């Protein structure tokens, strides 16, 4: 069949989900339906219609809220439209005959123009898919099973309905709402499916959660059991079945992803997910009994997997060096010497192995940028507005280049030149041997990042919010892209894409040749950290406190790790581990593949600077005035 599994991980990705209906189709806030229901706000959008929060105006003295589900009946011929409306009425009547705490009450239904409406009980809370999104790490099995047992209850009610079994047909986390009191409610009763004809080749239900027979148009109670199994699998492993090959659950049993799942529950899940319907639980009641039996075992009897608590390594530094003020910049190491700047205005040269002082050079301003090196010189900028070139060996000045603004940008050395930005808004290209200016490029605001060289184009971002691509030889503008806020993050290159963060909360990926945006990823606060690429992944920190790992080609989130404070430090990847600092004073080492914590080292103050690794040692500075050398 030509399906290449080994390449799927790296090459195939889902396109991002986006809202479905055009703006014009959505009812505006304040619209009143039937002279009685006032639209308060839009809650969700689907392909067939929307869900609104509304108010029943009949109860004028109080805020009587309700949910309104709208379906747009836009078939071109009147016969189909009539048929659709009939089906809709039939389903609405079934819903009206149900009475269960986990099923929202239906109060009314009507058609208006080519749209049909259901007025339902308003349910407060969020759905399980959203809840999973913002949960750090795995859900506890106990918590997940509390909800699942309630779902079993309501499915049992539906399957044994005396007027004929009702099959839910669309069981999945996003159709399970959790109220503030932890009670669940099933939403989306398949009313929308009324409008889809069942034709050979099309699907009913949601891919990934649906059993094989549902693809043939057969939907029975066994199908709900399969879908519940798929839902449990998703809740316990955080692996969305829609993003995995269909029917691949047996290749990824829950404990292989989340070892904290008990073997008994895993057995329940896998049985519910049997390909052949006869091999699954005979009824939802049977499945519920199996879950209860598994829960019933007390802690001593349950064979847990390997401890869910990670054993953190404890880390002792190889050496520490004290400067006279904060260290907010990153070091660079070459030939056994470590160079780092401090807010005490000095650039230090230390012995990398022992941390002994070799020399220091005083400037007139704080140093927050990272130095760069060529064969014999070290280059760095200072807040005294000058770019310095010192001898690596002696620390004596070779030349200096004044600018009109503070220098917070880290210089780049290549092609016999030093490229750096200044707060005066210029990007400079000066000769490495003399400091003489070759060209400068005027951007719209201070330039604080480290420029990147991509096949003869210098790429950098500015506080004016633009990302620039400038010709290396002449300084002429080649392209620019605008983001919505300033950029201090430095760009990095990986597999044909330039990655850069912005204060507009996004991490961007631009096509390296044209600068055209290919994808962007939204975090929950500014991205000041500079991304790092390793293999197929890109890593970045955000002021929202998280460290993110994304798939490089598509921007799909692979994992995120929540630290205790803002992450302005840039990650450094070495040998399967991501090293990064946080404003919570810690330096973190996380596993590249899973985001699992390897170790955490506590310093005496926030760590806004970025680590580097050289000769199996992690070097990083902290605002507690120290430079640390930590063993890998």
């Amino acid at each position, binding site marked *: 069949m030509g399906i290449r599994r080994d390449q799927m991980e790296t090459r195939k990705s*889902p396109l991002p989900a986006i809202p479905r209906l055009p703006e014009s189709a959505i009812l505006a806030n304040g619209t009143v339906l039937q002279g009685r229901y006032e639209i308060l706000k839009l809650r969700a959008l689907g392909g067939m219609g929307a869900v609104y929060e509304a108010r029943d105006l009949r109860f004028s003295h109080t805020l009587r809220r309700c949910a309104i589900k709208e379906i747009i009946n836009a*078939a071109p011929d009147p016969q189909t439209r009539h048929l659709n409306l009939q089906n809709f009425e039939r389903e609405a009547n079934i819903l009206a005959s149900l009475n269960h705490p986990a099923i929202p009450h239906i109060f009314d239904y009507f058609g208006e123009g080519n749209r049909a409406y259901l007025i339902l009980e308003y349910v407060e809370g969020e759905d399980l898919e959203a809840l999973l999104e913002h949960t750090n790490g795995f859900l506890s099995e106990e918590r997940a099973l509390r909800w699942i047992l309630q779902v079993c209850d309501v499915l049992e009610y539906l399957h044994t309905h005396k007027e004929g079994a009702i099959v839910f047909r669309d069981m999945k986390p996003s159709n399970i709402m959790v109220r503030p009191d932890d009670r669940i409610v099933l939403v989306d009763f398949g009313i929308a499916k009324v409008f889809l004809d069942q034709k050979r080749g099309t699907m009913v239900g949601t891919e990934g959660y649906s059993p094989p027979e549902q693809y043939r148009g057969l939907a029975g109670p066994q199908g709900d059991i399969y879908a519940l199994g798929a839902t449990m699998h998703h809740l316990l492993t955080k692996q969305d079945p829609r993003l995995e090959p269909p029917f691949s659950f047996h290749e990824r049993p829950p404990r292989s992803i989340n070892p904290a799942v008990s073997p008994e529950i895993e057995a329940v899940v896998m049985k519910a997910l049997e390909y052949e319907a006869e091999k699954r639980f005979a009824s939802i009641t049977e499945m519920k009994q199996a879950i209860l039996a598994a829960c019933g075992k007390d802690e001593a009897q349950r064979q847990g997997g390997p401890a869910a608590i990670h054993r953190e390594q404890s880390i002792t530094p190889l050496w520490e060096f004290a400067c006279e003020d904060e260290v907010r910049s990153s070091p660079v190491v070459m030939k056994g010497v470590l160079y780092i700047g401090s807010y005490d205005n000095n650039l230090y040269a230390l012995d990398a192995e022992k941390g002994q002082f070799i020399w220091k050079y005083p400037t007139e301003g704080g140093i927050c940028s990272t130095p760069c090196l060529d064969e014999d010189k070290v280059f760095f900028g200072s807040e005294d507005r000058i770019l310095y070139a010192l001898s690596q060996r002696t620390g004596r000045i070779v030349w200096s280049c004044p600018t009109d603004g503070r220098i917070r940008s880290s210089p780049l050395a290549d092609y016999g030149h030093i490229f750096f930005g200044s707060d005066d808004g210029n990007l400079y290209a000066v000769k490495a041997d003399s400091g003489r200016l070759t060209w400068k490029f005027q951007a719209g605001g201070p330039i604080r990042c480290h420029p990147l060289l991509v096949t003869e184009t210098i790429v950098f971002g500015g506080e004016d919010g633009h990302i620039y691509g400038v010709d290396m030889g002449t300084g002429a503008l080649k392209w620019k892209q605008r983001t919505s806020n300033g950029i201090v993050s430095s760009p990095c290159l990986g597999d044909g894409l330039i990655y850069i963060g912005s204060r507009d909360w996004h991490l961007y990926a631009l096509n390296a040749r*044209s600068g055209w945006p290919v994808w962007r990823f939204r975090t929950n606060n500014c991205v000041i950290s500079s991304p790092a690429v390793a293999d197929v992944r890109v890593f970045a920190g955000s002021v929202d406190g998280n460290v993110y790992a994304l798939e490089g080609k598509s921007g799909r989130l692979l994992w995120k790790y929540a630290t205790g404070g803002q992450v302005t430090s840039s990650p450094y990847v070495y040998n399967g581990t991501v090293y990064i600092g946080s404003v919570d004073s810690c330096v973190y080492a996380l596993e590249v593949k899973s985001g699992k914590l390897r170790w955490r080292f506590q310093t005496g103050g926030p760590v806004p600077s970025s680590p580097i690794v050289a000769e199996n040692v992690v070097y990083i500075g902290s605002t507690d005035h120290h430079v640390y050398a930590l063993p890998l």
Partner: protein
Amino acid sequence: MMLDLWRRISVFPGHRKTTLACRDPSAVAGVERRSLCSPLQVGYATDRGRDRKHNEDSLFFWRSILRRAHDYMPFGLFIVADGLGGHANGESASELATHVVASRVLGEIYLPFLNETEADASPAPINEVLASAVEACNVTVCQRIPGAGTTLTAMLLMGDTAFFAHVGDSRAYLLSQGKMQQITEDHSLVGRLLEAGAISEEEALEHPQRNIIYRSVGQGENLQADWYTIEMPPDGRILLCTDGLWGSVPEQEMPQIIVTAANPQEACDRLVDVARQRGSVDDVTIILIERDRAAHAG
């Protein structure tokens, strides 16, 4: 102010080491000429299946070359769509899908690209445009032609990079160094069951649902399209086709047919002939895209 002489030096250990190279002004003109990219050659064919009233496949392609900051970039959009057979209006669905995607991509990527010097550019990223294009197709087909469906395989070429949005069982292949490599993954129900070990090869051949795809444009809610990107190698060719071709011509035989043809158009015509000889009764649709043949000798 252009420098007369550039000398590249290798920097600290760990940095990519490059050989010492020297560029002088006399070489500059040569460099500029070489940087003009090879023009794209495109062949296409669409052939109605035997005993069919209408050809339910649709195709679309559009290409251009534009100059941007001393660089000539090829830019192209190529789409194949196969209307689901046995459904009402399969051809309307596939045609509609090609129009909607083309309109979105040209309007939200190409035109902004051309107009970027005028506007302060902040365009939507490519993958979001492709996602919204596929979803727009899905909603439009669903609402205007309920019950209809189509596959969709679209490729956007920008410079050396190809971006794909894909739903269904039409395919995109990369032909490079004499080997055919399937880029897209079929959303074939039987294919997936076979891979999952739920059915055997023999069962797959006779399976009553062997023509069923589990994702199609027009299915309504929850449509998820796949996204692929590849860098085009210098000798690379891309083949987009519907199952009328790959269902009867094994992919190992395709390179020979393509490479020995005089040009991509002839290659497409030959592929259709071979498909018919092998007994394909389905609609066959192909688009073949290649760079200048002089760039790769055979």
